[in-house]
Every structure is written in structure tokens, then in C-alpha cells.
């Protein structure tokens, strides 16, 4: 029975710890925790609660706290790490979330599947702060369902200490000299997209013959790739496992902060672009509050605060003006106009997604 007792003691203490932590973390009954509104003047009548489902490391806690303080709303903030996880959860129909942040192509899917509520833009007056080139995207003309949140790109990052020759093209990743020295996003669409670019095609190609060529080409890249990593490709660049890579632009910039030899390169064929958007799932219980939250995020000083905390790019031109000139003027952070003009957005490809999946499985399964 002595082992038994050890178990019980442990259990009791575990329970105690968990109760204490949940308590001091402010869990328990949400209603009891609602802070009193700081100002009640012109604000619309809001619910006491808002359930936000966002990418993690994408919204600083202090912004959430500020919103809570100002509007007297308790924010439940949960996170996901891929569009598809979010989709799987939202399409169940009863996730309980009031605000989600889908990327471009996922917006398209969610609109098609009728998973989103139309947004009342009159309740989001700060929408006017958004730059024209970020509004009216092909996936949501007129911004019926989406309000831009952040955007970024997929680029090449290279460690110039290890790679002496100039890097200009996606094709450079195929250089036999980089055998086992490449880190690549583990993202089916962007990787096949970059491969298509080397062949002179677009990132949203649906022609099976062209995709077949891309498959053959991508199989040639496989031996060069030391690691496929969408989550934190900068790590392999920083610790020397990889010399060059197909990475998120923000990852390249973060890596450069730690090691100045790492530089961001925009391939001449054109970079990949993405944009994340705030949207309201169908049936959300706190729609007005979600819109108030969107409006709050789009305030220039708030939006700027988010970009300060996380290294993605602002679609909010008023907020951009508040940025340190060294950030806005850094061509490795905010790509120059000609690079942007040649960049491409991903679209959802409907049934062709299956073809992409097949290619991906064959390359990884060989």
C-alpha cells in the first residue's frame, strides 16, 4: 500500500496546484471577472464576453487587456497554428468563437462553405485606415466578410557567411552545391508554387501537365533539403544546419536580427504573398463585440503595437506612419513596389488541391 499512498499524495498536491493556478489565472466563472468599463460615453452596447480564435504569437496580451479595460469585455483568447486546424474546428458549427483570422485562400473556402457572417463595416469605421491595395481582394470583393489584419511573404533567406555567390532566383535552391543545406517551408502550396515559378508558371497553376513538370522538378529539390519546417525555419538557419532556405519573410528578418549575415532575397520570378484577415464565424454569439474588437485593432496606435510585438507587415497605412522609419524603410521588411507587383497571392484551387496533395505525397513518400 505504500506506493498507493505516494500516488495519493501526489494526486492531492497536483489538485491543489491546479486549483491555485486556475484561480490566480483568472479562470473560473467568466462573469465574475468582468472588469468595469472605463468609459461609457459613445461606445455601443457590447456583450460581456468575446471569444477570439487566432494564430498564436499574433496578438500581444497587453492589447487584449487594453480592450478588456476600455470596453469591459472579458476576452477568451485561444490559438491555432494552421488555417486547416481552424477550419476543421469552425466548420463543426458550434465552436463558440466570435472572431477568427483566416488567410487569403482560406477566406475563399470559408465564404464558399458559408461559414462566415457578413461584417457591418459601418461598425468598423477604422476600416478607412486600411490601404487600398489590401482591400477588395479577389477572395472577398467589397470586404463583405473580412477585415485585413496582417500580411507577409514567402522569400529566400541566405546565410552570406556560407554562401558567397549572389542569390537571385528560386532556381538557386536547386544548386547541387547546396545538397543537404536547404531549409524549406513544409507548406504544400508555397513550395509547389515556388517550383512552378522556376518553370515560368504561376503559383495557382491548375493544368495537370504543368503540375506534372513541377512534380518532377520538385523531386530534384528533395535531396538538397535538410529539413522541411514551416513553424520555425529560422532555427535551422541560425544554428547552422541550413545555409539557404525558402522561408517566411518575417522569419528571415528575425534570423537577421540574431545573425546579420542572414539576408532576405526576393527571387526575380516573384515572391509569394499572404494576407490574414479578421472574420466572424457564422452563428457567432457576440457579433457586435467582435466588430468593436476589429475596430479597436484597426486604431493606428493599436495596430502598430501589434506589429511591434510580432514582425509581420501592416495593411494599415495610418499605423504604418507611426512605425520607426528604419522599419518601414527596410526593403527586407516591406518589399519595394516592383517586388510586390510581381508577387503572387494563393487562391484556393478547389478540386485541384487533390492534385497538389498527390504531388506532395509522392515527393515526400518516395
Amino acid at each position, binding site marked *: *500500500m*505504500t*506506493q*498507493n*499512498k*505516494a*500516488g495519493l*499524495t*501526489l*494526486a492531492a*498536491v*497536483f*489538485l491543489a*496546484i*491546479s*486549483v*491555485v*493556478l*486556475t*484561480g*490566480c*489565472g*483568472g*479562470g473560473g466563472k*467568466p462573469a465574475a471577472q468582468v472588469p468595469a468599463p472605463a468609459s461609457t460615453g459613445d461606445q455601443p452596447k457590447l456583450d460581456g464576453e468575446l*471569444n477570439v*480564435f487566432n*494564430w*498564436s*504569437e*499574433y496578438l500581444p*496580451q497587453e492589447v487584449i487587456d487594453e480592450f478588456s479595460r476600455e470596453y469591459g469585455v472579458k476576452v*477568451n*483568447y*485561444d*490559438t*491555432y*497554428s494552421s488555417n486547416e*486546424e481552424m477550419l*476543421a*474546428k469552425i466548420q*463543426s*458549427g*458550434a*465552436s*463558440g*468563437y466570435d472572431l477568427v483570422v483566416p488567410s487569403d485562400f482560406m477566406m475563399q473556402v470559408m465564404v464558399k462553405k458559408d461559414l462566415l457572417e457578413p461584417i457591418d463595416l459601418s461598425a468598423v469605421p477604422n476600416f478607412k485606415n486600411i490601404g487600398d491595395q489590401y482591400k477588395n481582394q479577389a477572395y472577398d470583393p467589397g470586404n463583405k466578410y473580412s477585415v485585413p489584419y496582417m500580411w507577409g511573404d514567402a522569400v529566400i533567406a541566405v546565410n552570406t557567411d556560407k554562401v558567397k555567390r549572389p542569390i537571385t532566383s528560386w532556381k538557386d535552391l536547386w544548386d547541387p552545391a547546396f545538397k543537404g543545406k536547404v531549409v524549406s517551408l513544409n507548406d504544400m502550396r508555397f513550395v509547389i508554387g515556388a517550383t512552378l515559378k522556376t518553370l515560368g508558371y504561376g503559383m495557382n497553376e491548375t493544368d495537370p501537365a504543368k503540375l506534372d513538370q513541377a512534380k518532377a522538378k520538385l523531386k530534384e529539390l528533395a535531396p538538397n533539403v535538410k529539413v522541411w519546417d514551416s*513553424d*520555425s525555419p*529560422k*532555427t535551422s538557419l*541560425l*544554428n547552422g544546419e541550413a545555409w539557404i532556405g525558402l522561408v517566411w519573410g518575417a522569419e528571415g528578418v*528575425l534570423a537577421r536580427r*540574431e545573425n546579420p549575415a542572414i539576408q532576405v532575397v526576393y527571387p526575380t520570378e516573384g515572391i509569394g504573398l499572404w494576407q490574414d484577415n479578421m472574420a466572424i464565424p457564422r452563428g457567432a454569439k457576440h457579433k457586435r463585440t467582435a466588430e468593436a474588437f476589429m475596430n479597436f485593432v484597426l486604431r493606428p496606435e493599436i495596430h502598430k503595437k501589434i506589429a511591434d510585438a*510580432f514582425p509581420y507587415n501592416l495593411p494599415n497605412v495610418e499605423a504604418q506612419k507611426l512605425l520607426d522609419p528604419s522599419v518601414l524603410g527596410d526593403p527586407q521588411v516591406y518589399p519595394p513596389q516592383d517586388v510586390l507587383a510581381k508577387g503572387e497571392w494563393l487562391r484556393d484551387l478547389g478540386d485541384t488541391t487533390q492534385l497538389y496533395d498527390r504531388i506532395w505525397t509522392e515527393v515526400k513518400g518516395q
Partner: protein
Amino acid sequence: MKRRILGLYSVLVYLFLYAPIFVLILFSFNRSKLNATWTGFTFDWYAKLLHDKPILEATGNTLLVALVSTAASTVIGTAAALAMHRFRFAGKRLMEALLYIPIVIPEIVMGVSLLALYVMLGMELGLPTIIIAHIAFSISFVTVTVRARLHGFNRYLEEAAMDLGADEWTTFRRVTFPLIVPGILSGALLALTLSLDDFVITFFTAGPGSTTLPLRIYSMLKLAVTPEVNALSTVLLGATLLLVTLSQRLQKKEL
């Protein structure tokens, strides 16, 4: 001699088990946020941890879920193990298959299909739905472990007890139960470990505000798992080790 070799070997296994733990602890003092290279010593992450409400809340949720689901699945799983070991009954083969399913089922399949079920039943997602899921996947791990202990169990001991006038319940309580305690304990430890770490199934069964630690940590991947998580792990690890020592001391005193 033989014993010494075995002891030495076991020290090596412990080293293997703790090697990553040492690294984890070391990096909780690393200045760099990126967890990639060592840049300098700091206590900052521990200080930050104290004020990080979301992560403390998630830790509380995790422990609560783990504890409740372990307790429930240990009781349910042990009962199943006893029945499977003891009795011949119609449908045993089917039961056998049913008990293997939670081990066999791919996590994501269990996650999305449970989510569909909860929605069909109109259940609100939250800690209870997470706990239900954790119990479901833990039961079989307990059953398999307890059955390994029961296997080849000496029935004569029980018969002897009954010959001496004990009823079957007393026999269970005084003879069978003490003998299978190590099996139950092992099963419970496995269930606890599974629950503390589960990400996929928890992700799909969690609702607003019921985030657990693995959920927080996995989604941090996009930027970097900060050393704050290492700091948290270090604190929890220290607390657990302290408890283990403490309970050991207590037992010795009582013996």
C-alpha cells in the same frame, strides 16, 4: 558483479532519460527568445512567468484535466481488466477489439469525430468535453497494463483466502487488490502522462477559454517556443521531484 553491471546500465538509462531535461533547464536561463542558440544568462523568463496569466491558467487547466481523467480512467480501466481477466462471457472477443481501438485510432480521427459527436449532442465545448475525451483514450492503456499484472495471477491465493472464510469481496480487497496495485499505479502513470501531453484530441474538443498547456505551446511554434515554457517546465519538474522525495520521506517515517 552482475548486479553492479545492471546498476551501472540503469544509471546510463537514467542519463538518457534526463539528458534533454538538463538541456531544457539550461535553456530556461537563456537570454535569447528564439531558443536556438545560447546568448547569455538571465532569470527574466521566471519573472515573466509569474505575470503570464494565460499560461498559468492553461497550466491549471492541464493539471485539472489530467487529474480527473486519470482518476476516472484508472477506475474504469481496472474494472475492465478484472472482468476481462476473470470471466468468460458472451461477446468477449468484441470487447477485446473495442478495448484496442483507443490505442489504435489515429489521434486526428478521434479528435474530429468526437467534435462532430459533441456538436450533434449539442454539448458545449470546454473542460468537460476535454476530460471526456481524455478518459476515452486512457482507459485502454490502464486496462492493458493491469491485465499484464493479472496474467498468470495465482488463483490459489484467492481460493485459500476463501477457504479460510473470507467472502469474495474481502478476498478482493485483502488479496487481489494489493497484488495488482503496481499494475494499477503503472496504468495510472501512463494515463497521466498521456493526458498531460495530448495536443491533437484536446485541440478539437476544447472550447473558448479552456486552453491547455500543450495547446498553448504547440501554437507558439509559429514564432518560437519561448524559454518561458522551459522555465515553467523547470518549476513544475522541481515541484514534482520535491513531492516524490517528500512522499518517500513520509512513508519511511510511517514504516
